């Protein structure tokens, strides 16, 4: 079985260098924009989607892949992950997702490890891009996340510092204090004299007490001056209203994450035009901030017109947003919106150009699935990044092969 896959891989890698055109025929194409899928051929030239139409006639030198009705979606993009930043959570020396010096100004971009085992694993499950984000801290601004293409090339393709991440909710002090701090820092950042930033920080009691670096204030300033996307994790209904107030007062480009009590303030959230990142399977009232948690969350938000993206609670398996999306649909979310939430919505909201949807001119980051992409039992048959057919082997496939064979030898000799 693996031999078969391997030979295809070699063929396609070979051809992706020698032949510039790939034609995928008779695919059930999910563009990623929330519209229903349709049958079409997709022509890719030099890694870019050239044409989407029915019955494109292949030229003799084109590579042709007959999809025969299989579902084709854009490569999935995780809106928050530890990919490339954390190898093993419980081992601090494999982690680069936290800073002891910087707060809001923490950029993890230069820590990205393109050889992490999380990359082939998530890619073989359909994830072609991610925003790797800092892990949570007590400070309401955690730092900035960066986008990375998961092509495992040592030449990293990414976008540095595409969004700020943070949290508002129960804390060791009062959430009133956190809101006060957020507002004070937003005002300070907006008014600060960039020429004399270090002096001004020295003069600020708050900045001194928090030991803020110039990078911290400059990053907060971007929330206002560039409308840098700000992903704020929050759950309690009253906190969601506070977040909406912050957006409106300071003109923030706000994205709310988790929002388990959003149904209680649905009208306000919908009219504030704030997209959300949710884990539709997390229906546990884990804290007193999440009492309204339920499996109906995605459906309720979707029906109110709120754009939904997906995250998962567990480490490492960011592709499981697909199972979350499937459960969201099972409980009433629109199917095509669920596909959009893993693809185009992420690219649009986090300003990742030319990716996230199957559209002419975009890079060909595509997944061809062996079934319904929202069924957990469905697996990718092919994953393309920049039009290149990616190897779907992982460390897990190597271990599986070693241990599922009959052998008289010690297994260390099987490789």
């Amino acid at each position, binding site marked *: *079985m*693996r031999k078969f896959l391997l030979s295809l891989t070699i063929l396609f890698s070979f051809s992706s260098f020698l032949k510039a055109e790939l034609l995928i025929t008779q695919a059930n194409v999910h563009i990623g924009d929330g519209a229903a899928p349709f049958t079409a051929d997709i022509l890719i030239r030099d890694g870019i989607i050239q044409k989407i139409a029915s019955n494109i006639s292949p030229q003799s030198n084109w590579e042709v892949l007959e999809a025969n009705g299989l579902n084709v979606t854009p490569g999935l993009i995780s809106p928050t992950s530890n990919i490339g930043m954390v*190898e*093993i*959570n*419980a*081992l601090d020396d494999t982690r680069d997702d936290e800073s002891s010096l910087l707060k809001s100004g923490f950029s993890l971009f230069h820590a990205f490890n393109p050889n992490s*085992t*999380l990359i082939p694993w998530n890619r073989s499950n359909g994830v072609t891009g991610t925003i790797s984000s800092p892990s949570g801290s007590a400070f309401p601004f955690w730092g900035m996340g960066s986008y990375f293409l998961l092509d495992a090339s040592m030449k990293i393709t990414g976008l540095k510092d595409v969004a700020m991440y943070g949290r508002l909710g129960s804390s060791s002090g009062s959430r009133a204090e956190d809101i006060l701090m957020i507002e004070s820092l937003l005002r300070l950042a907006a008014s600060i004299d960039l020429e004399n930033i270090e002096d001004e920080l020295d003069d600020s009691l708050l900045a001194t007490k928090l030991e803020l670096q110039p990078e911290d204030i400059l990053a907060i300033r971007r929330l206002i001056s560039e409308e840098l996307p700000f992903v704020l994790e929050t759950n309690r209904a009253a906190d969601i209203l506070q977040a909406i107030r912050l957006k409106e007062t300071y003109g923030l480009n706000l994205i709310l994450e988790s929002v388990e009590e959003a149904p*209680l303030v649905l009208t306000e959230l919908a009219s504030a035009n704030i997209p959300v990142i949710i884990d539709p*399977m*997390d*229906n*546990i*009232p*884990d*804290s*007193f901030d*999440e*009492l*309204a*948690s*339920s499996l*109906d969350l995605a459906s309720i938000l979707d029906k109110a017109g709120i754009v939904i993206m997906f995250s998962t*609670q*567990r*480490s*490492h*398996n960011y592709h*499981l947003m697909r*199972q979350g999306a*499937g*459960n969201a*649909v*099972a409980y009433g979310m629109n199917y095509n919106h669920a596909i959009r939430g893993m693809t185009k919505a992420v690219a649009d909201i986090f300003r990742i150009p030319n990716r996230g949807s199957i559209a002419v001119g975009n890079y060909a980051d595509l997944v061809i699935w062996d079934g319904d992409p*929202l*069924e*957990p*039992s*469905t*697996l990718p048959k092919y994953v393309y990044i920049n039009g290149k057919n990616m190897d779907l082997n992982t460390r*897990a*496939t190597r*271990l*599986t092969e070693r*241990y*599922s064979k009959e052998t008289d030898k010690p*297994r260390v000799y099987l490789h």
Partner: protein
Amino acid sequence: MDGVFTQKGCEMIKSNYLVLFCAFLVVSSCGESTFQETGQKLRDQAFLSTYQPMVSENVVIVNANMFDGLGNEYKDFDILIRDGKIQEIGQNLVIDGANIIDAEGKWVTPGIIDIHSHMGVYPAPGVRTSSDGNEATAPVTAEVWAEHSVWTQDPQFVLALKGGITSFHVLPGSANLMGGRGTTFKNVPSNSIQAMKFPEAPHSLKMACGENPKRVYGSRRQSPSTRMGNMAGYRKAWIDAQEYYEDIKDGKDVKRDLKNDTLAGVLSGEITVQNHCYRADEMMMMIEMSKEFNYQIMTFHHAVEAYKVADALAENGICAAMWADWWGFKHEAYDMVPANIAIVDQARGGTGCAIVHSDDAVGIQHLNQEAAKAIAAGNQAGYNISQARAMKWITYNPAKAAGILDQTGTLEVGKDADVVLWSGNPFSVYSKAEKVFIDGALAFDREKPELNPVTDFELGILNPNNSRIES
């Protein structure tokens, strides 16, 4: 009668019928086991199950597709539930005095069972004051019982019920080498833990390999701080327990010791061993230790590397309880392969015992989906695993591991009517448990939210006139 009946004594008779029957007989009918006398001393007389099934109506589900939990699939079958038991399974049953539910091609399975849950001991909300799963004050706390920590208002019970869970095994956490006793429950919340306990189900002893015990105690500069310290800790405890057990068998007047009661219960076979163990090399050491002290390991839990020693597990009659795909959160979880469950299942000509477990309040609601992923991964790796076979991973096999297979875990005549009617094929993400029967009583009905259980915690908490969630 409960007190003198020992699980082990009756299992020796090797007849399912007799085992069931034994519960109602006096001890002399149970055979000549040498454990009878010791059983009287070792088996605790306190905290026995007082579970009473809810009042049930006789029901027949017709035109159903079925996975029976034994590895079979049936199309267009009927199942008759009478007096809380499965009375008949077949086609075109003659129905007499039972409510008819037309399944219209939907699916019926046994109630789903989770062999690894911390519901109640780590309830929601996860507040410090009710986080009661680890008695992390000494590496061997075999004297504590998880059931004594269970918060009966935990809303997670009802969420699991909506996912088709009819029975679950609650374990202490894994901070300790020997963390205490685990207990199996029927998923019918009550104000008394005893009223939730699965009748006649054996206790387990929770043991833990690897990183957790050595981290918890090593960070306090106590033993164990290494894996070799772990091994020494277990063996020391077994040596003490052996002496205690021998003294009791010899009729000596021994002062009762709760810790050794539990460990001697393992040595006598009354208490199962549920052993948290990720790594293959550590599983092999635990097997060797079980031979040194002559006890049987029932299940390795979180057995991420079970696929590396699947043959040894099958040969030693040990189940592996696994996640479909969790990995990487610690080093001993680094070698996950998604075909793990399939490889364990197929070991030694398909004699392996694979279980899909959750250890998680979300996962327990979707064990069917976790099994679906494991089927796909197994088949991608070149196995040929049917859905009917995989249904055993979340029914028959966990029932066996919990010691309740004689009562539940399959659709067989005479068993407790723990039955789920699914809206579609249970391995699809779109299928939901529509009706869940426990001992024949309708414990959950998706179509009638007003009739479904709501824990005290959830009543009026966000709005005085509502429950926490309304469906």
